[in-house]
């Protein structure tokens, strides 16, 4: 009658504190969101935090499809963008009619917009998963993005549609003019959306989404229609993407066709995958990292997209579980107390890997700046793109770094196997 796992596995599964630990995580997240702008109060960091918050909601919504239900969408920005446009129109309408609707409600309207569109196109799209769904999502994405340039009255053409977020009624004396107030509005929605999306994974529908991801054929033989499951997942993903779009519209006070486009769809796929789709918190990490990199790299190099490509390929090839996958792989070792035996090999491997990475950077920058541009500044050392010494340095770093790194990573794998064996013996690894 009772669910009695072996003591060792139970020990591995048991979270410290149980329910307290669960609520503790969200309380901690709330505290962090409140305190963050007090520590980093510059305008630049407030803008960054706002964008990261929006990216988190967007990536989490994407993972309802990719990680939870196994649907690879190339057009998730459609729901995001339409949510943004609806939010802008709603803000303008509210301001024009002096309706008593405060700004913090607007993202919800964006969410309803995203969901409504998903409701409309989703039934046909989700009939099949896999390549069919991916191709249709790409088609719908292109369709809507091109429509946005044609239907000027709704989408405002090239320039988009602008709005003024301060023209709505103030709430508790907040006009949402200053960025700090917008940040808190976004932070509130990040927390609410993240909790809601986490809760969704813990419902019967959320679990059946996982089953559809793993084996849609078998789902049909336990009473479920996988088509309905995919459709519902698609609507929820559209809803939260719409919220993210609504927040973007508030943040920039504009919605334009770029919101809906393939770039935006690629960006969210990218963030989610780099963060890791197998764990709920993966897309959060990915959104933070990718947004931060995007903001940081654009000021350092003109070819920042090339670096994104390199990082993406690297993750797909060497860590398909993303950052979250890498982190969670170490959990059994930490619990078994054997992580310490692996760390030295990591430190050794880090040196040639870093050299290899520097070589790649030097190569990319040399190519990018060969026909003009500033000298390359790498770790304070200036390199001239046209100098053969630079090419030689890059080649040595890339080739030498790669060869040595390969040996050291083999050592890491051996150390890993030993540590994992011990962890397995101690019952922390199935």
């Amino acid at each position, binding site marked *: 009658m009772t669910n009695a796992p072996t003591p060792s596995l139970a020990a591995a599964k048991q979270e410290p504190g149980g329910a307290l630990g669960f609520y503790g995580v969200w309380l901690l997240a709330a505290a962090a969101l409140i305190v963050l702008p007090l520590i980093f109060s510059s305008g630049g960091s407030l803008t960054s935090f706002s964008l990261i918050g929006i990216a988190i909601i967007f990536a989490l919504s994407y993972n309802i499809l990719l990680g939870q239900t196994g649907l690879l969408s190339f057009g998730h920005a459609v729901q995001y963008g339409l949510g943004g446009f609806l939010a802008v129109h709603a803000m303008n309408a509210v301001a024009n009619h002096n309706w008593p609707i405060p700004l913090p409600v607007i993202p919800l309207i964006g969410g309803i917009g995203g969901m409504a569109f998903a409701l409309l196109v989703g039934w046909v799209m989700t009939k099949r998963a896999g390549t069919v769904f991916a191709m249709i999502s790409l088609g719908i994405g292109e369709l809507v993005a091109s429509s946005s340039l044609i239907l000027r009255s709704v989408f405002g053409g090239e320039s988009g549609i602008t709005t003024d977020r301060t023209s709505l009624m103030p709430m508790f004396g907040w006009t949402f003019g200053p960025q700090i107030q917008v940040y808190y509005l976004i932070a509130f929605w990040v927390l609410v959306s993240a909790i809601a999306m986490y809760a969704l994974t813990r419902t019967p529908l959320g679990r059946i989404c996982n089953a559809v991801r793993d084996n849609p054929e078998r789902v049909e*033989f*336990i009473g479920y229609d996988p088509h309905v499951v995919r459709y519902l997942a698609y609507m929820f993903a559209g809803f939260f993407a719409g919220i993210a779009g609504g927040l973007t519209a508030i943040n920039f006070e504009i919605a334009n066709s770029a919101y809906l486009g393939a770039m935006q769809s690629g960006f969210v796929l990218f963030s989610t995958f780099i963060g890791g789709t197998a764990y709920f918190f993966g897309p959060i990490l990915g959104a933070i990292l990718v947004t931060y990199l995007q903001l940081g790299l654009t000021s350092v190099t003109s070819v920042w997209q090339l670096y994104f490509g390199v990082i993406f390929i690297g993750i797909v090839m060497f860590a398909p579980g993303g950052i979250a996958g890498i982190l969670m792989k170490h959990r059994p070792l930490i619990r078994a107390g054997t992580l310490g035996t692996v760390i030295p090999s990591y430190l050794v491997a880090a040196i040639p890997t870093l050299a290899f990475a520097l070589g790649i950077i030097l190569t990319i920058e040399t190519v990018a700046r060969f026909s003009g541009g500033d000298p390359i500044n790498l770790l304070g050392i200036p390199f001239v793109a046209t100098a053969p010494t630079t090419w030689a340095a890059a080649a040595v770093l890339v080739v030498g770094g790669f060869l040595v790194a390969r040996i050291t990573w083999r050592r890491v794998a051996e150390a890993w196997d030993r540590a994992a064996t011990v962890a397995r013996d101690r019952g922390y690894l199935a």
Partner: protein
Amino acid sequence: MTAAIQVNAVEKSFGNVQIIRDLNLSVAKGERHAIIGPNGAGKSTTFNLISGYIKPTSGEIRLNGEVTSGLRPFEINRRGLSRSFQVTNVFARMTVWENVRCAVLWATGHRYAFWKNVDNLPEVKQRTAQILDDIHLSHRSDVPAGLLTYAEQRELEIGITIAGGANVIMLDEPTAGMSHAETERAVALIRRLTEGRTLVIVEHDMSVVFGLADRISVLVYGHIIASGTPEEIRGNPKVKEAYLGEEVD
């Protein structure tokens, strides 16, 4: 009394190739019915037809008196028929516990609910624990299904099949690839878990078939050439000639 499964003159062709010819089969309620036949006779196709995985070209299939030919698999499942697969067909990345729990959810009426916490459903929890206990996998409940041993995956396969409480259970070669000891264990398990339900089983192991079945149907080239008690089948010259040969003596 209406039969649990009634197959009337079902034909199935893939292109020009006719796989099932004039298939007639009747399985009474509470009966343990085995379908045997040489490789390629259409046993799995018969399972696929009855469970809705493929649709018959012509003919009619009834489940507990109701016509089910033409319905989708989940519609047939909701009407009380559950099947297992010859090739293990579980949710590989989910734990054993979650595998069984997913199979319990529809039957306990939670359907597509997105407003309930799945961990807070006492009936679901209790039934899942009961099934895991029944299939002797309680101690493996936290292990991802993909990491189970082959025999354990076969047991989980049976567990998922019976979890919804269907009154007609169809098992497609449940002991395929198992050792002798594992087979004995599996047969005892099947016997116990399908008590009071209708069982249709496809099996190659004749000791399993003759030990378990109340009735046996022999399928050859997509057509049932004989249907009867184990004794009748043993004594049937047509069966001997077509399939069993000296094996049953």
